[in-house]
């Protein structure tokens, strides 16, 4: 009887193959409901304009509006300035820090590592508020100290340029340690023999850094660059708490601009269009960075 026969091997394998999909199904369903669906829905939203509660299909109008919106360009420019100035400085600082924290000359390394990483676990809003209190022109600690030293008060948050610098300082304080830890982890996988070989070849500390450390760090540098880029393009919390995007939109970011349209102006269609433009930008910049920094074939 065929019924008594054991299952053919192929069918047994097939049933075995279905099992993993069953296991991931709950996660997939949740992903579809809470990620995929909103992503799709917001694309549809970006093609609509809501007038008096009724959605009207407007095609690419919202995207056309983007091109003609001076504040959007201000926000983009502000975001790109942070990207071009703060991110490289921070990553250079993080690299230096990683090398220093890796050095066997340093005593109590774990204490320092913890110290530099700690800002990362501070609540975003909490540190934003702390910085805004520290940097207040008339009442802040920093200007009080400067005053004691005989310097004039600095308009940290009330002048466009200084507000950008303050934002950069806050971001650097927060994320440098985090990036340093990633770089440090990679640094520890660089074989010691390479340094020994470099030393035998007569390389000094600088040459060793250039020819051994940096190439070794390359994948981690790529990772931190891409992560920082994405993070910067989505920048929201710090400027919101620190400056509210001001003064006169000097620290307005794309993320804030998006949020403002959705939740302050109730213009969800336009906010979605900004979100898609932002996604496109992040995708393009990410691709570019992989091209430039990634392993060449």
């Amino acid at each position, binding site marked *: 009887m065929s019924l008594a026969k054991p299952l053919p091997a192929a069918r047994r394998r097939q049933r075995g193959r279905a099992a993993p999909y069953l296991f991931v199904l709950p996660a997939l369903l949740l992903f579809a409901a*809470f990620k995929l669906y909103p992503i799709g829905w917001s694309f549809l939203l970006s093609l609509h304009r809501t007038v008096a509660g009724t959605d009207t299909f407007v095609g690419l109008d919202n995207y056309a509006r983007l091109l003609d919106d001076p504040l959007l360009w201000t926000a983009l420019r502000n975001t790109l300035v942070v990207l071009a100035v703060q991110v490289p400085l921070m990553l250079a600082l993080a690299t230096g820090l990683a090398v220093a924290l890796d050095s066997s000359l340093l005593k109590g390394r774990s204490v320092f590592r913890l110290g530099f990483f700690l800002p990362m676990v501070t609540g975003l809003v909490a540190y934003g508020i702390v910085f805004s209190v520290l940097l207040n022109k008339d009442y802040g600690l920093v200007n009080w100290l400067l005053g004691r030293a005989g310097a004039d008060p600095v308009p940290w948050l009330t002048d466009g340029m200084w507000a950008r610098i303050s934002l950069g300082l806050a971001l650097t304080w927060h994320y440098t340690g985090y990036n340093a830890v990633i770089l440090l982890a990679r640094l520890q996988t660089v074989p010691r023999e390479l340094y020994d070989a470099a030393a035998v070849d007569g390389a000094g500390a600088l040459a060793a850094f250039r020819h051994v450390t940096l190439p070794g760090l390359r994948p981690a540098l790529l990772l931190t660059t891409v992560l920082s880029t994405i993070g910067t393009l989505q920048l929201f919390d710090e400027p919101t708490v620190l400056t*509210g995007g001001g003064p006169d939109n000097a620290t307005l970011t794309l993320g804030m601009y998006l949020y403002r349209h*959705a939740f302050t102006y109730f213009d969800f269609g336009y906010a979605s269009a900004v979100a898609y433009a932002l996604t496109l930008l992040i995708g393009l910049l990410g691709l570019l960075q992989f091209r430039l920094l990634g392993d060449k074939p």
Partner: protein
Amino acid sequence: MTDSDRQPHDTDSRPPARRDLLRMGGGALAAGLGGLALTACTGTGADGGGGDDGDPEKGRITVWSWQGPAAELKALVPDFNKAHPGIQVTVEDIGNPAIWEKITAGLAAGGQGLADVLHIGVDYLPGYVERFPGGLADLAPLGATRHKDAFAQGLWGTVSPDGTRVNALPWEANSGGFYYRADLFEKAGVDADALQTWDETIEAGKTLKAKTGAHLIGIDKPASQPDAANFFQLLLQLQGAFYFDLDGRVTLDSPESVKAMTLIKTMNDAGLVSDLSGGWNTLISSLKKGTNAVVPYPTWFGGVIEEQVPAEAGRWRVRLPPAVRRGGPTAATVNSTHLAVAGGSRHRAAAWTFVEYALTRPASQVRIYRGKGIAPALMKAYDDSVFHEPSAFFGGQKKGEIFLAALKAPSPPVNYTADYARALRLVTDAQSKVLLKGADPAAVLRDAAAELARQTGRKTAR
């Protein structure tokens, strides 16, 4: 946005909880999108005022408010339940400004997850009504119209712009005030009570600065918080003007607007304006330091001063603000808050029962005033003696009567429109340019008006 909405009414709740704003932003976004999903799948959403309102004496209702007002509503519940035992009320303190994001997300999700009763500021109400028709229940069929004449003038037009549909019931009505340090004015030899116009006040401010070192007022110059334009708005309203006219046209560059901004520039150029960037925290520390001689804030701020600087009892006075033009009005209702019922609520009738109990009975309103100094819009409440008692803190002045006089004075209606938030943003940016870069008031306001018209498709009134 306007001060009453942005500030906690009690000071134990500290600055408007920004952490909440951010947390709610993310949470609300997820909730909103989840809600959209449900709406799309089942085809049910808020159906507006139609349908069954439920039993007016039975149901389980939730109320959303913030800080002080939430606490006061909570305190009303035991009494309410004596009269209406069938209704279970849960009052939730959502926090301000978090509540706006949460209501927005709920309304955008077709009413999913909203409370039955919503506490809404005048700056958000028109936007909610216009952008989400049916999101708030029409209270007229439930009986709201019979209270039409019970509130301070102008407020019925705010909650019922077309005269038939009633979107909410007024709760607070805050008039612009002029709180000042009598001791500083005395030291400077200026009679603060005699100041009739803001021009005179600026001259007095110069003497004050020279003799005491105190600034006249403080403004959040870089507009780090959305309510940085409160003072500008007060000066506009004292002239019967606003960002929009009653037809919804943009009036940001009106002569009144330019006059208001010019006054601010004159004060600033004379070194009379201290910087309050950082918002609430900075305002309170300036209060404690005595940096500014005048705090041009509305009714509810008196309670905050008493709580924050109790040691200065007797040094403070309050009056209505000077006029912008000699002989002009000194009274302006600068903001109001309201209770609305969610259109998608299954217990609209029960929710209305609670709203009516809280807002139209003088006893409820008097109790709330005693608790948190929240100025009622309900005129009958002012018959109570609590509004006519001399205040030891304000040197024996009858503070309640001063603001009552303002509520009774003619107050032109203010058209916030659904685009108030955009207008406010452009105004605060323009003000920052004037205060920080010395820009020309007429020029920045003309640009702001043009930009507002461009963004909203509204016409300018010029």
